[in-house]
């Protein structure tokens, strides 16, 4: 079996021998939005103009001493995109106008253009290579490693990097081997709940059934999260390989990728990967001569968040309104079309090929306690370096936020970190020393979730944050069960009262009642966890709730209905605020103290931001 894989590898390496240099332009969505496609095309144009040999695909036809101009998947450092690397040299924020200079200096003469290097904000040093950048130093990139290197649309390059060796090994050694290795690895579901992957497979393998299904859950929907999309776009073959190995392990005949339709690039790349696998005999009948036959296809998600819940996802694939079903029966017993089905998240599956090739013990050597391996997070919010990171589990919040994230974006304090998306909760500053594991997060009232990680500072109002997440869940509730359907909406009503300044203290009692009913009686995890952001912020930031309810005040100014702007005696009458006010609420003679007509004020805060003397206070 391994021979076919080896042959492809050797052929690719032979072809690749003609390549002298490689320019990698990041093709992640963030960089594409920043213009990386144009940069990629500009490199080709520049090479053509200069008559230099280059190729955009590794084939037999590659000329000697060619440069391989390729796109990669998301490299994670999205705040600094578009990213371009020439050999080891790593450029950030590259524009089309920089391309000529890069070719002239870096490609032809080997010179480094300092202007395009990333500057470490702590010591102002220029970072020449990726390894010099603190953002990458503390990371432990396994899944994302190849994501930033290889051409995601070239199966041969994936194979040359060790791809499909895991599959060959799995097919050769059998189902039990796969399950055993997975058990040793300790890999747990990366979709959020952390169910042991080996156990899920074993439970699906056990029932006697001619037909079984494997599903890849690519219905990523948490606000601000894009781990799965990046993996599907950046290294689709790793997920496809994971899907084939998983299908083999449980004895499935057919597998489905369920990817949300808003991810067109991911869909395109996964489809290409599937097509390539069929061509190479890695999918279809009798895969690699093993006797195992398996088909893969893509189903589109229409964008309902709840379809990320496994039973709702199944219902959606079956062609029905995407609403969850009660468990038990679990999908492992009665899943898609009533057949035993295993549903695994994209990131979970992407880990599988590495576990097969390097062994479960290797995987288990990373991480902490029952939370082994690495986890990909999408770090966003008030932190210097936002982007996609992969870290070993057990890393502390502090390391993530300060060492990788570079610390707070403004000011000197990070107030809290939110994990787990709308189902999660906040971690306050007192717990930043806490290692990130499934257990520790749960203990604190949050969850691992799929990997959204949002950093908040003093300008964020925690009631407002809770409201934001709750609003999301209310909007995304399928409406099937009453605790979630009505409870969520009622809960949101009370939060609105709080941020409007009309809440009473006893409303907190009602909030608690509703939250309990939702957690205890909702049908699926969406409703059961929807109150988490509220409960978690109440737990750690009760004083902010009290401030809103008792003092009718939001010190961050986020809750517009509570905000009140006043001009103090510091005012010198420069008139800047008067100019900035969009509704003419400020009056005053020049060089005289100005004042705000509260009845006209729309609480936009323009005056507050404009005043250089800090003469305006927000109450």
């Amino acid at each position, binding site marked *: 079996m391994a021979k076919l894989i080896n042959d492809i590898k050797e052929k690719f390496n032979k072809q690749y021998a003609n390549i002298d240099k490689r320019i990698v332009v990041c093709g992640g969505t963030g960089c594409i939005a920043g213009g990386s496609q144009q940069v990629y095309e500009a490199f080709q144009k520049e090479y053509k103009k200069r008559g230099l040999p280059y190729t955009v695909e590794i084939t037999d036809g590659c000329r000697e001493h060619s440069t391989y101009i390729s796109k990669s998947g998301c490299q994670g450092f999205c705040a600094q995109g578009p990213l371009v690397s020439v050999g080891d040299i790593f450029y950030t924020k590259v524009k089309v106008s920089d391309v000529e200079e890069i070719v002239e200096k870096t490609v032809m003469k080997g010179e480094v253009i300092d202007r395009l290097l990333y500057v470490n904000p702590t010591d102002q040093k220029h970072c020449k290579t990726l390894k010099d950048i603190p953002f990458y130093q503390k990371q432990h990139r396994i899944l994302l490693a190849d994501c930033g290197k290889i051409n995601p649309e070239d199966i041969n390059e994936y194979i040359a990097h060790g791809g499909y060796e895991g599959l060959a090994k799995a097919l050769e050694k059998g189902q039990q081997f796969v399950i055993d290795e997975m058990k040793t690895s300790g890999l747990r579901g990366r979709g959020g709940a952390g169910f042991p992957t080996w156990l899920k497979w074993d439970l699906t393998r056990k029932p006697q059934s001619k037909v079984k299904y494997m599903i890849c859950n690519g219905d990523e929907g948490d606000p601000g999260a894009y781990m799965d999309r990046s993996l599907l776009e950046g290294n689709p073959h790793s997920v496809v390989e994971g899907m084939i190995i998983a299908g083999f392990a449980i004895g499935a005949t057919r597998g489905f990728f369920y990817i949300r339709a808003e991810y067109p690039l991911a869909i395109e790349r996964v489809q290409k990967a599937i097509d390539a696998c069929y061509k190479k005999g890695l999918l279809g009948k009798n895969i690699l001569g093993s006797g195992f036959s398996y088909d893969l296809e893509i189903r589109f998600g229409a964008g309902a968040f709840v379809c990320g819940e496994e039973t709702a996802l199944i219902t959606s694939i079956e062609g029905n309104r995407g609403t969850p079903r009660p468990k038990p029966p679990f999908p492992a017993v009665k899943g898609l079309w009533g057949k035993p089905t295993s549903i695994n998240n994209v990131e979970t599956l992407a880990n599988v090929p590495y576990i097969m090739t390097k062994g479960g013990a290797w995987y288990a050597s990373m991480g902490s306690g029952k939370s082994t391996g690495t986890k990909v997070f999408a770090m966003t919010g008030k932190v210097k370096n936002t982007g996609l990171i992969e870290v070993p589990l057990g890393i502390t919040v502090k390391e993530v936020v300060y060492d990788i994230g570079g610390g707070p974006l403004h000011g000197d304090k990070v107030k809290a970190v939110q994990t787990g998306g709308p189902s999660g909760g906040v971690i306050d500053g007192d717990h930043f020393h806490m290692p990130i594991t499934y257990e520790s997060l749960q203990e604190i009232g949050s969850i691992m979730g799929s990997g959204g990680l949002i950093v908040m500072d003093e300008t964020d109002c925690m009631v407002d944050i809770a409201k934001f997440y709750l609003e999301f869940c209310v909007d995304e509730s399928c409406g099937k069960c*009453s*605790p979630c359907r009505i409870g969520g909406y009622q809960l949101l009503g009370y939060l609105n009262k709080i941020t409007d300044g009309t809440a009473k203290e006893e409303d907190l009692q009602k909030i608690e009642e509703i939250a309990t009913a939702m957690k205890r009686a909702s049908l699926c995890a969406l409703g059961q966890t929807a109150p988490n952001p509220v409960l978690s912020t109440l737990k750690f930031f009760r004083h902010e709730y009290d401030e809103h309810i008792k003092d009718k005040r939001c010190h961050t100014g986020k809750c517009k209905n509570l905000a009140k702007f006043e001009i103090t005696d510091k005012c010198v009458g420069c008139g800047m605020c008067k100019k900035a006010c969009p509704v003419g609420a400020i009056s005053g003679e020049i060089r005289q103290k100005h004042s705000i007509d509260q009845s006209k004020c729309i609480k936009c805060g323009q005056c507050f931001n404009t005043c250089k003397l800090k003469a305006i206070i927000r109450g």
Partner: protein
Amino acid sequence: MIKAKINGKDIEVKEGTSILDAARVANVKIPTLCKHEDLEATGGCGLCIVKVKGSNKILRACTTEITEGMEVITHDPEIVAVRRSVLELIMSNHPKDCLTCARNQNCELQRLAAEFGIRENHFPNVLNSRKHKRDNSAKGICIDTSKCIQCGRCVQVCQKVQDVWALSFLKRGIKTYLSAAGDIDLKDSPCVNCGQCSAHCPVGAIVEHDETREAWNALSDEKKYCVVQFAPAVRVAIGEAFGYPVGKNLTGKLTSALYALGFNAVFDTNTGADLTILEEASEFKHRLTNGGVLPLITSCCPAWVDFVEKNHGDMLDHISSAKSPHEMVGVLAKTYYAQKHNIDPKDIFVVSVMPCTAKKYEIGRDKDMSASGYPDVDLVLTTREIARMIKQAGIDFNNLEDRKGDDILSAYTGAATIFGATGGVMEAALRTAYNLVTGAELKDVNFKKVRGLKGIKEAKVDVNGTEVRVAVAHGLGNVDALMKKIKKAKAEGKELPYHFVEVMACQGGCVAGGGQPYGVTDELRTLRAKGLYKEDEHAEIRCSHNNPAIKKLYADYLGAPLSEKAHHLLHTHYTKRNKYQK
């Protein structure tokens, strides 16, 4: 069998039993608003939560199977508190206008609120969070989405049990509302007015069109000669509204009550049923002996007729052209009876009391329903409506003397009365068809194979050496398999699987029709049917062709079955219709 404990009490139930059903064995009724025994559990309402000893996890009793050794706790302070919160949440999204609701005193939500002793509106009213829509477009039923609690019973019964797919939920979350699919009017949808949605609705979101006012108006109109008839299934269900045991046959009391309401004459749809059998069995004999289109499929059920016109337009030549029994009685009231009593048919107002909401649609389905030049039937009232009228009039139903109906239009046989149960029409038709084909009488008139609640029932009958294969389906969801089987045999030119087929839209037949008293279950279906079979068993005459009234009708007025006059008055046509009218 599974041995388990519920609240410490040992129970033994069949494998696969839900905790909800198992609890009944332990004499615990766990509250639920979405689970109905006819339907699959969905876990929607969130009220039936329970715990298992040793675990803090909450399970839904409706969807969780009880397993060996399980120790279920159905109530503790937390469970009760959460149930109460959930109930209060549901109430916050439901109007509190119980006094003006069709389900007042008969509402599952109202009952729970009373049982939980809810004395205030605990959470703010959020009724305006979703679209409110009143759909009165269909003839049989009307929808008021503001009352809907999104339990999903109606949608499930419409889609899964009836295979009609008229109802669905639109939007999601708090904005979810019930509507005809695609937000069109119900009358333009595939709805066949079977009314099973209204029969399963726990609240007043879907109810029959109340036409009692029209009935009162007609009764108080001195120019009108009001006659009334009631269907077989009504007599064994009306008692439920007056505290009688389920299935009690109250023909005499109901007749008496109808006179008391002021009707000039009371007929019995059963006479029409006997007449239908004569026409239909003759049609069957004709087709069987002349190589006509077979199988012949019954046509008494208007929801089925609407369904077949909308879904199986290629099968219309299989449907018996005989009108349904109450249409036959109606047309005879305006012709035969009018002439006999010298009443101008335009002054006769015919009211049919039916277990059915689709009958409200049927009376205007095409011009054949006005064979005399006037509508055969002017108004259809359901069992629920007539019960209300009797109560409105203050009639002491329980203490009424039994009375007999008028004229020969209320004389019937045992064969007619079993029309109300699934398989009854087939059994009655076989009794007469046998006689028509062989000229002999059956020794044993019972065809027990076509009785009971199995979805599709099949039987073979030896008619003078010819094997006659029959099938009975009830619940429109069971029709598809039958039709496929017939169509396949036809397409392949193979021997037909059946000669004669009975279809009733509602599970259990008319006894569990969409217009019957609420709370139908298989137990109720069985008991109501039992009431009918009991009457048949004790009937002096058990075959329609032996009904002297029918013989007299043919002799005096109609001539013979399938005569030109009979055809004109007692038969109809079918038209292929679109599923969606727009």
